[in-house]
């Protein structure tokens, strides 16, 4: 029952919300598409929170997604014991880095009078979920070693079975609870993404990189 909830109901609900609500929000409420920075009101703790968080979690997130997308490539890459060891250590270090960051961000929200005015329940929800996610991730990294290896043979085929609409719970059903919570929380975060300020991660400044520095808009050319 728990397995069916976490590994079938949740991922499909999350996927549906992500695919339907995100474009809806982009088209109808684009004004809300922002990271809602609070640096203006508090910057000392933010520096030590937000940098470790982003620089820790981004490589880890990319590694998760990359291994899902190209499992064959990763299998070959991790076949070498030295590479596996280095990657595993690096992953754990980045995970701890991110955990430190998100905990600081949580404490920061709780301790600043000015920030109370710009902190909403969705912010708390996200902070707790992300902290929980980073915490369970670090726990798995410590106590269920070689995750970068077994992830390829368990979670990845399971995720592929989800996206091919043929869910195979056999790959993941016998894992300990902490792994299941990590997966459940991940799906929950994906489900919340289109409703919260997390959407900010879905915009990459590509135009900025390729455009000339000064941008003009002309009424006569219809782009105003």
């Amino acid at each position: 029952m728990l397995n069916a909830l976490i590994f079938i109901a949740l991922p499909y609900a999350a996927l549906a919300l992500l695919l339907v609500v995100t474009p809806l929000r982009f088209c109808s409420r684009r004004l809300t598409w922002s990271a809602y920075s609070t640096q203006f009101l508090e910057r000392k703790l933010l520096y030590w929170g937000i940098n470790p968080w982003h620089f820790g979690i981004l490589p880890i997130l990319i590694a998760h997604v990359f291994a899902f997308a190209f499992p064959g490539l990763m299998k070959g890459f991790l076949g070498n014991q030295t590479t596996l060891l280095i990657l595993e250590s690096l992953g754990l270090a980045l995970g701890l880095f991110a955990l430190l960051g998100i905990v600081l961000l949580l404490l920061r929200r709780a301790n600043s009078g000015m920030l109370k005015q710009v902190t909403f329940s969705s912010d708390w929800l996200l902070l707790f979920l992300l902290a929980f996610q980073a915490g369970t991730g670090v726990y798995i990294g410590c106590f269920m070693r070689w995750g970068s290896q077994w992830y390829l043979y368990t979670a990845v085929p399971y995720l592929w079975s989800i996206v091919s609409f043929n869910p195979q719970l056999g790959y993941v059903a016998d894992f300990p609870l902490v792994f299941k919570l990590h997966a459940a929380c991940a799906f929950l975060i994906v489900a919340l993404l289109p409703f919260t300020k997390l959407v900010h991660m879905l915009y990459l400044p590509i135009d900025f990189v390729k455009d000339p520095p000064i941008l003009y808009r002309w009424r006569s050319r219809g782009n105003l």
Partner: protein
Amino acid sequence: MDVRAQIVMVFNLDKCIGCHTCSISCKNIWTDRKGAEYMWWNNVETKPGVGYPKQWENQQRFKGGFVVDGKKLRLKAMGKGPTLLNMFFQPNMPKIEDYYEPFDFDYGNLAGAKDSDDQPVARAFSQISGDDIDEIQGGPNWDDDLSGSQIYAAKDMNLQDKQVVDQYDTMFMQYLPRICNHCLNPACVASCPSRALYKRGEDGIVLVDQNVCKGWRFCTSACPYKKVYFNWQSGKAEKCIFCYPRVESGQCNACAHSCVGRIRYVGVLLYDADGVEASLTGSDDQLVDAQRAHILDPRDPKVQEGARKNGITEQWLEAAVKSPVYTLVKEFGIALPLHPEFRTMPMAYYIPSLSPVLSVFGETHKLLEHGMIPALEKLRVPIGYLASLLAGGNHQVIEKALRKLIALRVFMRGENLGAPVDAAVLSDAGMDRASALKLYRLFTLAGYNERNVIPAQQREDQDPEKRKQQAGFGILEKTRRAK
């Protein structure tokens, strides 16, 4: 030659009395709302002083504007790569304390307090956190009229000799009203990773598209004038919009319209958009001349032809010919850009002020030694100070402008007293009788329509029947029944 039009404001600093009426009219219309309490799109600061936000001219700290890198310009703060790496925490962004913590007073308590032996008071509270403030630490004009000059005026970046502020008889003071400069090479636009900031092609007004802005905050520090603000509630950048809803319909900006001293002039400049960046790569003291070289003569048939080719309408061309701004900036060369060395080519210009009125008492100001109108060499405002503020350190540019202003005064004094002065007074300063009278008229008698020559946007030839229903007030997001 790529002829474009820019709507420009000129400030006559000699006439600014620092009454802040402009700031209040701007505040009432645009920034009297949550998240924007601390913003003053138009502000007036006392110079010498640290200004608003404090020390905004200090680019060592805020890293605003452009610097020359070889033969090219680059943003002083960082290039595109580092921008991407600094998105999470923007190291140069000003914080709320650099402006001030906005406050209000609990006026409701004056009428609503319970019966008591004590007189009820209106306590100050923070407009951000809502908490009581026991002692207000700062405000938008904390150093107004040189208050606390040892602390504030002494820190003015333009003041070479800090001891000037110690002595009452060497002290000087002037006001500096500031809006967004709507630069030709805006650093805020160049720094925006979301590409939300843009310059309007038709009139050069620089705006933030609120729908596109992601709140990445690079503009707030890239603008060397600190005229892009961060709305702490909406999480987006905001700035002076040059009152475009008014200007588009040919009306004057709220700040300029409400100006008590009539110090502001609004009009059109035609400029050459080719090679703006290249001309900003010279040394600091060449920048005023380089900037003037980009401003084109609207009477020149070649310029007019180029303007028509670029879609500039006849009404705009006519306004450019009549523009008081062209007269002051290019024809007379007395209106100068604020801090051209920030290399954004700012499009707000300032006529430098003469010194305070001379006192006739005491040893300090020997009137006869000066003559009735002070000689350039005897001005109390150090030329170096004005040069640092308005000319990238170039003394000649300031002296040339001041010479004209002084000559005009001497000339008009003679005219009014029935004792005309020698023609050399004017010709030495590069003027003649006709131009002096023209300048005199613009400074003193010119009415609203002479000070502000603002052509409306030509909507008539842009499908007016379709636009008719889109104008005016309305609800942006459609209700369910709207089709």
